[in-house]
């Protein structure tokens, strides 16, 4: 399917939405909203992929991001000394460094975009999902499978470490308060 004016219009709209919501990540005053603005940005990128006929990739991106951004928000709230992330807070810090990093990475990416030679061939006419499957389980199988097994090992390890049921049994069984009359050392 050759891209028509509608595709270009949609891609532009989603692109602008992705950039604006990415900017709002830093302009908002709460960690939860920052996480969900970032998710909005990813949803816009996923929609761009859907417009260019990569339905599966675009939708999987949106699917993954909903859970990931919520986990990110929960972790940010956990690590901040801010009751449940409800108090307003400034989302930017280290202004000089971040401005330099932002401008630097923009210039680098723009340079890559201008200089790199992008492939010109159109997508194969067959189902793009089939092509993706052949890529994943064809010549790139070793890469993806090793990455997959490594990630799986990390996940199992993390669950084993975080599991409530340790070698002393269930955490809920063990959570008994100590006796009131603890032997207090004389505070001399």
């Amino acid at each position, binding site marked *: 399917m050759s891209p028509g004016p509608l595709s270009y219009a949609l891609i532009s709209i989603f692109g602008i939405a992705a950039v604006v919501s990415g900017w709002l990540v830093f302009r908002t005053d709460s960690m*939860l*909203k920052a996480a*969900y603005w970032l*998710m909005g940005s990813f949803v816009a990128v996923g929609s761009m992929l859907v417009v260019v006929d990569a*339905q*599966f990739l675009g*939708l*999987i991106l*949106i*699917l993954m991001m*909903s*859970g990931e*951004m*919520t*986990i990110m*928000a*929960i972790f940010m709230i956990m690590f901040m000394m801010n009751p*449940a*992330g*409800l108090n307003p807070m400034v989302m930017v810090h280290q202004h000089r460094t971040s401005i330099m990093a932002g401008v630097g990475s923009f210039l680098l990416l723009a340079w890559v975009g201008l200089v790199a030679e992008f492939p010109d061939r159109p997508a194969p006419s067959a*189902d793009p*999902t089939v092509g993706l499957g052949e890529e994943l389980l064809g010549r790139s199988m070793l890469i993806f499978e090793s990455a997959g097994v490594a990630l799986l090992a990390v996940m199992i390890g993390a*669950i084993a470490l975080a599991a*409530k049921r340790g070698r002393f049994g269930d955490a*809920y069984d063990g959570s008994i308060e100590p006796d009131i009359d603890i032997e207090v050392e004389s505070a001399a």
Partner: protein
Amino acid sequence: MTALGILTQVTLMLVGGAYVLAVADRLMGGSSTGVRSALSYPVRRLSFLFLQPMSTTERPDFAVWILAPALLAALAAVGAVAVPIAGPSPGGDIAAGLVLFGAAMLVVLVAVFMFGWAPNSVFPMIGGFRFAAMVLSIGIPFSLVVLTTAIPAESLSVGVIVEAQSDLWFVLVQPLGLVIYLITAAAIAFWGPFDLPEGSDLAGGIVAESSGARLAMWRFGRAALMVTVSLMGQAVFLGGYLGPVLPGWLWTLVKTAVLLILLALTGRTMARMRIQRFVWFGWVVLLPLALVDVFLSGWLAL
């Protein structure tokens, strides 16, 4: 079908299904006032809620509080678009329809979390956190059993999956899949034994501070979500619009209503599960069972 036609069809499906669910739930709930009263119950309840004033809290996030119910209903509609209702659509339907549905259902987490966070109040927020724990525990089994139905059909398009069941419904090939699907779908719609985010043990949880039109919209969004998961469940497990004598759209409606009533029944008859036990249940029981289901269906399809 035109965009307007699809919009009308999905809206009618969701509103009608929500009505069926509300009536079934009222009847299962043991109301002794009879069937006639239960039939008018959704309308009475809705008018009551719309006349009730909307309470508010100290410094809530108004925009998020209003957007979350809208997002919930919108996600239900997006998920429902993937399912063909009357028969094979002439232009073919959405190629990755199953993934669209899965993505819409997992973004429900965002809607619920936002709705719990917005009122700036403790019980709703605990409800939101609970739902995050729930969805992370059952999200993988849910996605796995939905995607498993794509293995025998060799397509992610729901229309092709329905057509692949012309000989045998997938519920007979992979009955385990339907069981896991119904459990996880009820949890995603925070319904029945899994209504932990808004359980009475949390003083109402995410809806503790909501009343009036806001509560009405939230209740509709959840009912619409139940309709969407039932609609997808009948399409990928019960043969969708396929069936003798009756026209296709009627089969879709009947099968969707059957699943809705089944879910309403379990929601009213089974005891609520504690969140700790539910998380354990999701990771230790449902996830391995879903993997078994994937291996079985792959083995049968080869």
